[in-house]
Each structure stands twice: as C-alpha cells, then as structure tokens.
C-alpha cells in the first residue's frame, strides 16, 4: 500500500482503534464511518479495543505475495475480539499449538515491507494468551 494510505490508518493499525455506534452500541473493527445497522441515523465514535479474543479459523501460509513471501510460513487467522467484531491478522506461535478457539491477545509487530528501500509496515498481530487469569 502507498504511504498516505497506510499513514491514514496508523492509529487503527497500531492501537487497535475501531469504532462503536452510540445508537445501537455495536462495535466495529476495522473502523467504519457509517454503521451498517443504523446507517445514516447511527453515530460512530472511535473505540479502542482491549485486544483480547479467540481464533475463529486459521491457516499456515506457505506461499504468499512478494511483500510477504519472505515471512512464510506464517499463521494467518480470523480473530473474534471479545467486544464482538472479527478481524484478519497473524498469530505468532508454534504451528503445532495453533488451534480454533485459542485465546489470544494483541501485540505491536512488524507486518511487512515493500522492498529493501521501501516502507516497513507495523501493526497489530496476536500471540497466545498464556495465563488467562491475568486477562483483565
């Protein structure tokens, strides 16, 4: 992605900031500027997610696009955040441990890079929540 396009999303990608509709109280990540439920009558405000969730489904990527080929094999997953919404991200853990239903928490990591001289992307990935008792 181009620099402006990534820059525009920095706070969302770095800090897991999405949106919440004040009218229906639905949470959205990725952020939306219109609530799909309330549409024009909704009121969207920024919302910082706690970063806890569980793995809904996953795959181990053995082949990828040029920006991500160097990282293979990596775990791509859809994660259900505790507040409700699902997002796509990577889980950093042993390929033997990853499973559907695994509890995870967010972490700030390098996502990828365009080339040796291009931009480096940072954002949110997930790691296993080793000690669930310290969750909140």
């Amino acid at each position, binding site marked *: 992605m181009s620099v402006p396009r990534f820059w525009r999303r920095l706070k969302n990608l770095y800090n897991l900031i999405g949106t919440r509709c004040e009218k229906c109280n639905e949470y959205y990540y990725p952020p939306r500027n219109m609530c799909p439920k309330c549409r024009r009558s909704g009121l969207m405000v920024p919302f910082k997610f706690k970063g806890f969730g569980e793995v809904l*489904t996953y795959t181990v990527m053995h082949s990828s*696009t040029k920006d991500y080929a160097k990282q293979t094999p990596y775990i*791509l997953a859809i994660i259900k955040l505790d507040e409700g919404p699902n997002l796509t991200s990577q889980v950093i853990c042993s390929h033997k441990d990853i499973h559907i239903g695994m509890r995870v928490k967010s972490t700030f990591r390098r996502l990828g890079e365009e080339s040796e001289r291009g931009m480096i992307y940072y954002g949110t990935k997930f790691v296993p929540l080793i000690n669930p008792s310290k969750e909140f």
Partner: protein
Amino acid sequence: MRDVAIVGVGCTEFGELWDRSFRELFVEAGISAIEDANIQGGEIDALYVGNMSGGRFIEQEHLGALIADYAGLASLNIPSTRVEAACASGGLALRQGIVAVASGYHDIVIAGGAEKMTDVDVQITTDALAAAADREWEGVMGATFPGLYAMIARLHMHKYATTQEQLACVAVKNHHNGTMNPKAQFQNEISIETVLNSIMVADPLHIYDCSPITDGASAVVIAPAEIARKYTDTPIYVKASAQASGTLALHDRLDITTLDATVAAASRAYRMAKVTPGDIDFAEVHDCFTIAEICAIEDLGFVRKGEGGPASLSGMTAIGGKIPINPSGGLKACGHPVGATGVKQAVEVALQLRGEAGRRQIDGAEIGLTHNVGGSGGTAVVHIFSREK
C-alpha cells in the same frame, strides 16, 4: 421485461497462451460466438467485456474501446463497456448483456470476458488477485486468496468433519472432466494421492486444491427470445439472472463457511425461474479452490450445509451422478482466466443443453445453472438456462 436467449457461444482454449495477446484472445472468442450465431457485425448493438485486472496483468485499461476497435466495430461506433467484479467479472458482463436485451434497450449484444494472466511474474499475479479482497484489512495482514479459502476450509473441517480427502476428490473429479474437454488447461487424470502429496500452499489447501493461473476468453451472443430462432435452431433460454453482494472481507461474514451472496443470488434465481434446486440437471460452479465447490453445492441448495464433503466423495457430483457439477472441468481443470470464467460457464451450459458437449455430454440435460463468485464472496452471480422457452 422480455425473455432473452443465448444464440451463439465461443471460447478460446484455456491455458498458458504465451503466443497470444489479450486482444487476440477476446477477438477469437467473439468471432467464434458470432459465427456460431451466424450474425453480421453490423447487427451488434452493444458489447460487454468482463475483465478483472487488465491494469495489473497487462498494464492496459480502457478495455471496452480496445475490444471494440480490434473486433472491427469501432468504425460502427458500437458502445462497449468493461465490467468488473473481480473473479465474477465475466458473470456480471453476461448479466449486463442480458439486462440490456431484456430491458429492450438493445437487441443483439455480445457479452464476453477475457483475462491475460501469464504476462507477469506469479507473485504479481497473486497480489493482483489479492486486490479482490480487502486490501486495507486483509491484504496488509498477509492474506492471499488461497489463504482466505484455506481459512474457510479449516473451519468447514472443524464444524462438519470435512476431510482433506473429500476436498481432494473435487479436484480429481474436475480433472477427470477436463480430460474430455479439448479446451481445458489440464486434460490429465489425477488421484487423491496426487493432491495430498502436492506442495502445501495454505494449510489445508495443497496446490492441487487451487485453480490455476490461466489465459483465455469466452463470449456469447444474446438476443430477444422471440427472434432467437432466426439465428439458431437451438436457442438457450435465460430463465433467471441474479446477482447479490456480500461483505467484501471474509472476517465480516455471519458464518465464515457460508457465502451469503451465493445463497441470496441462488434464492433470487430459483424464484425468478420458478424452479427448485432439485429441478437443476447440472451446474457449472465457482470452484476456485476445492473447498469453494463444496461450499457452492451447499449454498446453492443441492445438499444441506456441511454435507458437501461426503456428497463429493460419494460421486453424486460426477457426470452420471445425481447432480453433475463442473462438467467442463471447472475452474480447477478447465482453467480460471478470471474475467472469462463467468462467461465460459454459460458457454458450457449452452453446449450441454444443445447436446454438443462431446464425450462429457450429460444425458438428457434440460436445465443448467451457472454460479460465479467475486473474491471470497463479495459478489455472486447465478444464472439458470433452459432448452425450453
């Protein structure tokens, strides 16, 4: 709205066609459709060109004008429109052509699709295809299409005990059908072991679970039903043309293993054609990955949700089975030039209904369905065709 028929079909061979360009492929498919319908260029009222990513694959946009020009129709100033909905671009171009004739706005329309995917490096192709997903919230996280469908497969296996063998048998069946299609990219038999022993792309999908990268083009001639017999003795009537949208990103689906857009488009199509899934004799479905065919036969209502794996293994979807799926070889074996695929499906259904499908002919085929998907399910297009008016 008036009834519409397909009066001519054409298709290039599918494969790595390094010696032919995008424009040559489209013109070849268009000419064979026009000759099949026995019409003259001057009779054509409009062109619809399905294409996903000319900009990335051949660094060429403005494809409507390009095709009109190289089809020799620029001197007649015939309107030509490019239609894009990722891998459903072809199905959508077909639908635009049908809508244009049904509305009475045009009489004779060419709807075609083409994609030239092998002119660039495979990683660029993969990245261009990834543009059909949500670039900002899927692509940037390292998602590719095999990755997204692998996550569908993983959850399907978890929820319904679908096995890798069941996935693999979809590829085996489609390769078998491909051996009987002289236009197919792959015309060789494979076994379940071939699939399971092939390299892993995105776990649990092996490379033989994935449709290939393909060059190719296909086209049909659409006419009002009342004058269809002027052009052919075997018009194929369009009983339904339905389209539906779903969420762009896979993670926003209510159920990751259900393509809501397919369910919605199919239900609209069945209502429009006044048929049920049980009335469909055979279907060309969007098997971009083996799991996609399993989801398709469920979401189209041929089997219940979760039963697509065992149904595929049972032979129900083979030619000669209860509901033959992808007699052409599907995207998996016939090939998947993304913009051409949705039109090629209609070409196959027309050939089957006309009884001209050669060794892969389905006996007594009366009603056929096509199912074309964009991305992981952001767009779905379903058409139902019949021999009977």
